[in-house]
């Protein structure tokens, strides 16, 4: 009984120590994808072992800024222990959970440098799922992470943009030593699809939708349907 008690006490202390004293960061990113109202604000909450990426628009009040409610918020969860990231997406109301490798990027270091928010940044480029990206990362924050799925460099990525100019993430705020609470287990799905399977589901879902649209409006006219995300491109022409 006493042994269990001491064991629990040590476990609790270590657990608390890890969640409170391991340096936690909150970085706010601006996402520009060249639409009419192009700016969305995202948040990356991270420390040595995990990170959560979510849309600030989902967070209602200032007081809940550091709390993550795994059941309600949309987020991408990166877990160092399993070297995987977990994401989910809703297609017509049905939620698909999928997992992807954490090390998705083959970076090529280039000798450009830039100062962002007083942090000296180095540059690297990569080709990822159909697009080339240039990222600026700082070794002054030596945690290998970045906005969205990006990561794998020797420091935090503060800015990354696609070379075709369509997508840009840039850090606008960095808060050190933030205390955050996670409500509910982050691994929500019962089963996780692999990325390739999820991609197939996405494409076939949109192909079905395109057929529906055509049946509704198409008639005898030629029909062009296109859906594009950062990673997937679906183009249907009939």
């Amino acid at each position, binding site marked *: 009984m006493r042994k269990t008690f001491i064991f629990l006490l040590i476990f609790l202390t270590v657990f608390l120590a890890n969640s409170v004293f391991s*340096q936690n960061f909150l970085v706010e990113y601006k996402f520009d994808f060249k639409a009419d109202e192009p700016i969305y604000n995202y948040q990356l909450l991270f420390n*040595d072992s995990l990170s959560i990426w979510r849309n600030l628009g989902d967070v209602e009040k200032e007081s809940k800024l550091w709390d993550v409610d795994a059941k309600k918020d949309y987020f991408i969860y990166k877990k160092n222990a399993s070297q995987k990231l977990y994401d989910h997406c809703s297609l017509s109301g049905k939620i698909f959970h999928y997992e992807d490798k954490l090390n998705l990027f083959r970076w090529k270091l280039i000798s450009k440098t830039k100062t962002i928010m007083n942090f000296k940044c*180095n540059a690297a480029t990569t080709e990822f799922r159909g697009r080339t990206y240039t990222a600026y990362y700082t070794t002054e924050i030596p945690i290998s992470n970045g906005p969205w799925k990006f990561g794998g460099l020797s420091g935090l990525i503060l800015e990354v943009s696609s070379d075709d100019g369509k997508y840009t993430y*840039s850090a606008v705020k960095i808060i050190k030593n933030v205390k955050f609470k996670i409500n509910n287990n982050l691994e929500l799905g019962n089963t996780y699809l692999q990325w390739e399977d999820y991609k197939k589901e996405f494409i076939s879902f949109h192909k079905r939708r395109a057929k529906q649209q055509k049946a509704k409006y198409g008639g005898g006219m030629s029909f062009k349907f296109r859906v594009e995300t950062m990673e997937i491109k679906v183009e249907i022409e009939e």
Partner: protein
Amino acid sequence: MLHFLLCPFISVSQTIKGTIKNEKGEKITTASVIIRDSLRAEDIREFVIARNGEYSITLQEKYERFILEITANGYTKEFVAFGSIDKEITYIRDFVLVAESEQIEQITITAKKNPFSINEDTTKFDVQGYADGTERKIEDIIKKLPGVQVNEKTGEIKYKNKSIETIKLDGDDLFGGNYSIGSRNINVDMVEQIQAIENYSDNPLLKGIENSEKVILNLKLKKGVDVSGDIDFGNGLMAGKKFARDVGSTILAVTKKYKAFGSLSYNNIGVNQTPFNYFDSYNYNSEQAKDRDFFAQKLIPEYGFSSVLDENRVNINQTLFGSYNQTFKLGKKTNVKSGLYYTSDNIQSLQEFVNNIQIANENIKISDLNDISKQPILYSGDTQIKINTSSSSLLEYKASLKQENIFTKSNLIQNDSNFFASTLRSNNFYYKQTFMFTQKISERKALQIFLNQASDKLSQTFTFTPAIFQTDTHKQENQKAFSEKNTFQSKVLLLGSNSKKQKYTFALGVNLEQNPIQSSFEGETQNGNTIILQEFQNDFVYKENKFFNELSYRFFIKKWRFTLFNTFNFLQQTLLEQSKTTIFSEPSVSLYHKLTSISSINLSYNYNRKPFTEEYFFTNAIFQSIRQRTKNTPSLEFTKSHISNLNYQINDLYNQFLLILGTNYNITEGNYFSDYNVETKTTQVRFFYLPENTKTWSSYLNIE
């Protein structure tokens, strides 16, 4: 041997590995292992992420010497210098990192926001990025925006050296040319963003066809503003125990179909929040300047308060101003916009001039003490109806009405003994109607028909007590002047463009103008009789009929833009017995070159000929002030001007730098000159025409 053959495909590289722990001996969860050329090198050559306290890096390149750097969150950096290392040996190097001193407080670092963004023709400015907290009305922010110049007197706003057409609210035109009502009265905290839109086409049917260099500002209001208003109070005490007041209230209502802005203000501290300016003799705001051709000329000029100091805070006024602007949609096709304005003021000035002259042993003191008060009252209203008659045609009707009465009283005491009082009453009634129809003929061609009709009636009475001309017999004298202008204009315009490189227009039009002018000077005798002095009577009509053809052509080649414009005129003038017909051309040409994304150079030349306006046509004198009467020897000649301009502009928004360097060279042929005939009591000025040349050369430099 076999081994040797296989070897070339096996990369013989240098490998370094080891453990990364902290001072307690614990493995560090994650760390970065970086290879640099030298200690001070900024570039990173290679790297690897170390997990669970272990790392292993195999160098891809060959180095003479390199630095191996270990960084981990919460620990100080460690690095080791390596010379050239052998290929076949794996080096083992363990690291023990020292924890950084514990920092528990939260530290926030924020990026400096770029307060603006550019998207093709629109530049968006975030209001917060330019505010420092002292601004009240949106004009205070507009002044600070890069590339924007605001004329403090008239409220005129220029963007990149071009006057703006209007200020829209969330895409709706509420104020028209009287946009200073918006800029001077809308509060800063109602506005989220200010957009400057270039190459603006007021008429959506002409987008891409019209050669437009127009610029407008669009205010994006903060979300959730449905109805908002504010009331401002400013109270104080001025010298002489007069209460200083600055009271204003505004109300703004914004819904999808209806937008309205109303303002009411009163102040006596010299601030002008109205779009009108009565401080000067005349000073047209941009809306009035457009209609200047339709206004009758004032034969007796109004009083202008000149001051050595800045106009602001020098005038003593009592300005009451009210305005109401609204725009709403009637059904799907019709949009109605209307505005009502009222202003009244009492501008006062007390001026004393003392001259001490020493001649021989005599001291002569000449003094003038002038007490003036100018009281204008203005009622004006306008309405505009736009109907989308079809998807390719637009019908517009505009009507405006103005009644302006200015009453100026002036009391002059000369040398502490002679007393002169004069009053000037000017009543002006003006109305104008415009009808405009646009039909899009094809994707790149459009036809427009314009009809304008306007009438301006001006009547002035200038009274002098005691008399200034026949001082023995008259106790009071009155100068009366009536001038009227009736205009009818019609124009048919064809516009077209060939792809995006060429744009052209062709127009045919007619302008008919009629100006009846009358004046009389009478004196009231001691017995109460009124005597009209024949030598100061005018009664005539000046007519101008013009038929014209306008042709313009604009084309782009790479970064160059050429514009050619020509007006061919047939002008008929009639004055008294004289009649004259003139046929002439007015060409103009301009060349624009974009040097870089932020700088450009512009060269232009134009030639124009203008007949003189009616105030040079009355032959019998009109008394314009206590000391001066004016008459003319009229001429139907024209003034001919050659105007050329060269300017260089840099507009760098990112670094907030604006530079305009320019030079003008103008030659004017033919102008009215004056000769002065000084008599004992008054001075007679006579204007006459001389075909003299005046050459002016000027340069200007504007840096912000």
